[in-house]
């Protein structure tokens, strides 16, 4: 595969989980990383500041109509869905919640799968709901690669377990191995 983007979804326990992966991504990462974390619909986005301090890569909040840049980590803003357009630009929407969430992991994953096809790596991490399962299935069906945090080691196993059930071919990975695995996949 020739990866063009990485999408990550996390919910309950997600900040801890992401802290074990995102800071280990190398400064010369060749693809953009798009992240949806379920967060309350407040206006400010504390996640961006938090991870900007920890990461080697630039971290920012995703903006509507923005063109994706390699080696940048984008967080979905609170209370908006994050979508990828086919020309690799970003879009936001205030559509209905999906799986009671906005942003929803499924919305990002399904639109990214549509835009990047087999050039997408999708990762589902810890969480207490089913969001991301349909999305990861879309990633697999489009020929992309799927990685799921090992439910046994996840803070909350529900979400990774649901993702695995929807996408049985997904690789199972411990958080500590994910960054290295991504580097290998990116060649």
């Amino acid at each position: 595969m020739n990866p063009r983007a990485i999408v990550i979804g996390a919910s309950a326990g997600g900040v801890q989980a992401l802290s074990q992966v995102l800071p280990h991504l190398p400064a010369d990462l060749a693809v953009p990383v798009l992240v949806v974390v379920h967060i309350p619909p407040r206006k400010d986005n504390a996640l961006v500041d938090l991870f900007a301090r920890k990461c080697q890569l630039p971290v920012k909040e995703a903006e509507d109509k923005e063109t994706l840049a390699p080696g940048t980590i984008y967080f979905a803003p609170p209370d908006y869905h994050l979508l990828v357009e086919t020309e690799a630009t970003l879009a936001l929407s205030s559509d209905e919640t999906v799986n009671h969430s906005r942003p929803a992991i499924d919305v990002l994953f399904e639109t990214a799968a549509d835009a990047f096809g087999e050039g997408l790596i999708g990762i589902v991490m810890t969480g207490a709901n089913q969001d991301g399962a349909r999305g990861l299935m879309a990633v697999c069906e489009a020929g992309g690669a799927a990685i799921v945090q090992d439910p046994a080691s996840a803070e909350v196993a529900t979400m990774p377990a649901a993702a695995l059930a929807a996408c049985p071919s997904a690789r199972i990975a411990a958080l500590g191995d994910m960054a290295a695995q991504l580097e290998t996949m990116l060649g």
Partner: protein
Amino acid sequence: MSGSIEDIEIELLLDAIYRKFHYDFRNYARASIKRRLLHAKAKFGFDSISALQSAVLHDETMLPQLLNYLTVQVSEMFRDPSYFRALREKVVPHLRTYPSLKVWVAGCSNGEELYSLAILFAEEGLTERTMFYATDINPAALRAAQAGVYPLDRLRLFTENHQLSGGRSSLSEYYTANYDRAVFDKSLRERTVFSDHSLVTDAAFGEMHLISCRNVLIYFDRDLQDRAVGLFGESLTRGGFLGIGSRESLRFSAHADLFSDFVMEEKIYRRKAR
């Protein structure tokens, strides 16, 4: 670029809707439209977007139903309370200096934003001098806005938002509970003109002092955003105010230089005097 059969079908469907009904979704942000159409296809039980297209063209009851999928009706009263607080504290003092006021809620959907502004204006003693214009492309949404009836279980959120926005009264003064519904007082819309208007295909409205159009531009591609922002520039009186959604921006519009920042963190802009 993307050549999947579904993408081709979607283009054909949007073209058909435009040619037959003059609703123009062709330049809406495509990823969201595609999700909505696939959702509609599944809900209506069609096997393909082409089958949906055939139904839309041949069955006149289909389009109004499809419009409810193609347009977004999700909002809440006093959504982003800090936006309304900024209107109250920073914009209203300027509005007070005018003997008469025109306010345009563009893309009013089911009316939550309109009633929020009407209540804010009532609290600030501006009702008598204000005309509101509430526009949308979806007739069903306009009817809902005109009715001003919302599920009672949403009122807890609306009330909380209203308080956070600096509300000077109790929201319960403006509605009556009727079983599981909250019916908003018709005095709030006595000075409102509800009208079918498209930011995509229709012309400017005259001499507005405030335009509130939040979370509408994100559904447009860059060209459409450009058009809409130009329309707002034309429709505002010099020194008039424009409020857009918290994650929206004027920066893709060639007309951005018609505006200066007014309350940047709330995305409130002011029409330059030129």
